[in-house]
């Protein structure tokens, strides 16, 4: 797919890949073998009829293609851009055994963008059931659950803590990977369906889950995500210049700090930025640092390239943009002068025996410490569950990490009428996994409010 040149794009926040033209999309769609067993559909967490929509693209029936996708996925413009296709649909593509798999994600994005220019697909909504459902959190899980429930004719209110809906799609994933206008467009579609979104709602403090259930809602879906940043717990981590990835990205994305002082929220990057971690968030933060004007931007990751959890395309883009990967390296101390970060003391690692995750455990090499000079460090080593709802809802079983315990098939929690899904249940995962959980929970909630049981 055509995209912005690396040298150009590090100077702006515009989206990197341009997307297919109609002819390019048709040509790519023609590569699909239309396998009768369609392993790609099983590889998709929301079960999109992938061969079906691709066949429509091949026949230039773009309206039918997007309708096919939207029957299973409420946010295709988002998923086409941020899903880890290589480990899902494209990872099991039959063509991929010998050749490049069909570019399913790019085709999905093409269909969603085509629809935005043509406005054809109006989801059908069942007649009103008279049932009311509260969805807490307007991230991928909550938005998906809300869309599915509204389609079934229920009245749906989403309560969002921040001042905009979208969750991680707005505060976390950068503009150059997922333009905010696209997220807003997807959310506007949901509002057009009659879903009510209330922002600035501190559920837990203002209204508890119990108050929602007592106050006329027939069921509650909790999709409040993994918002609590983890730190490393090494000395110097509270120095000025050490950011959590959440703060670094929230300042930039949600608060538009890259447009400071036009926008009021500032951010500082300095000349040298070290990002700790190897996931998508680490890639996002290190690439954001370049766009904010850093001279050098480095990834420090304790395992090797093979274990990098980020999407292949993000690692590829990061390398193209000149991100310096210091693999098998781990920070042991942040060094400061006058309260400000000046460097990160790191130690080299080697891979030992496999650990409980099945990956080879990184082990420090004695005497291999060295200092990387840096004015900014970004900690991108994951997030814990957002504590507000779990802590204020009696009767909700939690794991020892504070995640909500819920049935993976239905989202049913230990509390009647309360369902949960996404990162608040699983811990930090992907957008599409959260959407899959939201979709499954919506089906269970539908059964629950109609029949009184799941």
């Amino acid at each position, binding site marked *: 797919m055509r995209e912005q040149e690396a040298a150009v794009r590090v100077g702006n926040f515009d989206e990197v890949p341009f997307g297919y033209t109609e002819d390019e999309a048709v040509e790519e769609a023609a590569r699909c073998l239309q396998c009768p067993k369609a392993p790609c559909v099983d590889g998709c967490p929301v079960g999109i009829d992938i061969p079906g929509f691709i066949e429509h693209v091949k026949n230039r029936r773009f309206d039918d293609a997007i309708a096919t996708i939207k029957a299973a996925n409420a946010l295709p413009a988002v998923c086409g851009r941020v899903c880890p296709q290589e480990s899902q649909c494209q990872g099991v593509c039959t063509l991929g055994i010998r050749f490049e798999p069909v570019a399913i994600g790019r085709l999905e994005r093409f269909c969603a963008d085509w629809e935005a220019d043509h406005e054809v697909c109006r989801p059908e909504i069942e007649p009103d059931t008279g049932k009311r459902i509260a969805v807490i959190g307007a991230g991928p899980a909550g938005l998906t659950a809300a869309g599915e429930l509204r389609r079934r004719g229920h009245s749906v209110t989403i309560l969002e803590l921040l001042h905009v809906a979208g969750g991680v799609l707005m505060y976390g994933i950068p503009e150059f990977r997922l333009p905010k206008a696209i997220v807003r467009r997807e959310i506007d579609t949901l509002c057009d369906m009659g879903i009510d979104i209330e922002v600035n709602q501190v559920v837990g403090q203002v209204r508890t889950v119990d108050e929602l259930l007592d106050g006329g809602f027939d069921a509650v879906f909790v999709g409040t995500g993994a918002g609590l940043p983890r730190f490393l717990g090494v000395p110097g981590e509270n120095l000025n210049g050490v950011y959590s990835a959440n703060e670094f990205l*929230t300042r930039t994305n949600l608060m538009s700090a890259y447009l400071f002082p036009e926008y009021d*929220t500032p951010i500082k990057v300095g000349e040298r930025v070290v990002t700790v971690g190897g996931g998508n968030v680490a890639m996002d933060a290190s690439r954001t640092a370049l766009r904010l004007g850093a001279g050098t931007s480095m990834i420090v990751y304790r395992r090797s390239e093979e274990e990098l959890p980020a999407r292949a395309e993000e690692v590829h883009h990061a390398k193209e943009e000149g991100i310096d990967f210091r693999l098998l390296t781990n920070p042991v101390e942040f060094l400061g002068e006058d309260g400000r970060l000046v460097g990160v003391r790191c130690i080299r690692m080697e891979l030992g025996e496999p650990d409980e995750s099945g990956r080879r455990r990184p082990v420090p090499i004695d005497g291999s410490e060295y200092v990387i000079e840096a004015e900014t460090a970004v900690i991108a080593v994951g997030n814990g569950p957002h504590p*507000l709802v779990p802590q204020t809802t009696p009767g909700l079983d939690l794991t020892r990490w504070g995640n909500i315990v819920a049935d993976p098939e239905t989202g049913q929690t230990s509390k009647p009428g309360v369902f949960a899904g996404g990162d608040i249940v699983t811990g930090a995962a992907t957008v599409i996994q959260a959407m899959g959980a939201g979709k499954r929970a919506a089906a269970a909630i539908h059964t629950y409010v109609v029949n009184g049981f799941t």
Partner: protein
Amino acid sequence: MYRILKKRTLGQDIREYVVEAPDVARVGKAGQFIVLRLHERGERIPLTIVDCDPETGGVTLVVQELGKSTREMGDRFHEGDTILDFAGPLGKATEVEDYGTVVCIGGGVGIAPLYPIAKALKGAGNTVIGIIGYRNRDLMIYHDEFSATCDELIVMTNDGSYGGKGFVSDPLRELLESGRKIDHVWAIGPAIMMKVCSEITREFSVPTTVSLNSVMIDGTGMCGGCRVEVGGVAQFACVDGPEFDGHKVDFDLLMSRQGYYAEEEACSLERYLAESTDGEKGAS
């Protein structure tokens, strides 16, 4: 959108607002805070709650105009105008119980959020001694309210223009040295004031609660920008606080982190003031 029901000037560059936010007013408690955003380009500003009136739905805030956003609020947001975003209550409420005799120490604009705490402690049966300090007599906010609430009130000004001359820590030390039994101290104000007060009360082993106003974005536990060290452990002021044991807080770290964006704040204010001046010229 959240309407400004009332606005009044309390002193130079200090204003009091009552904002219509019925949900917050219904449940907000002393010690908690809210986050507001004035407009689409605005930053999220954390402000400690001064009063909540469930009847009118009004939440009272006191704002000192130090930076661009607070100055803009003072200049451009009047009674009847609306604020774009207003979320709360956030953080943990003050632990109000009958301790016996308590001292409530307030410095500058910190006196305003201290007021509901003093009132609640009085209501819980405590003997409340107030020590409030101002730079000078023109900045004497919430003096009448404290007079009406406290069993005893000591007022200090830095320049001696009203009450005693000096800092709030001076009468605090005298009080503790007098041997009078003090069961708990609250100190809210500039970080340096809270630090000095906590050092004094530590000498006398009097439990001390401080309220930390570190730099934060969301105010709900998501950014971690507000982290402070309490007893050597990183804590988030927004969800673990904002009130902490003053004897365990690393105030030097707090002050260092509060100052991190000083250059950007100055740049933003300068730009705003230049624009405002241009605007006035254009209008005249």
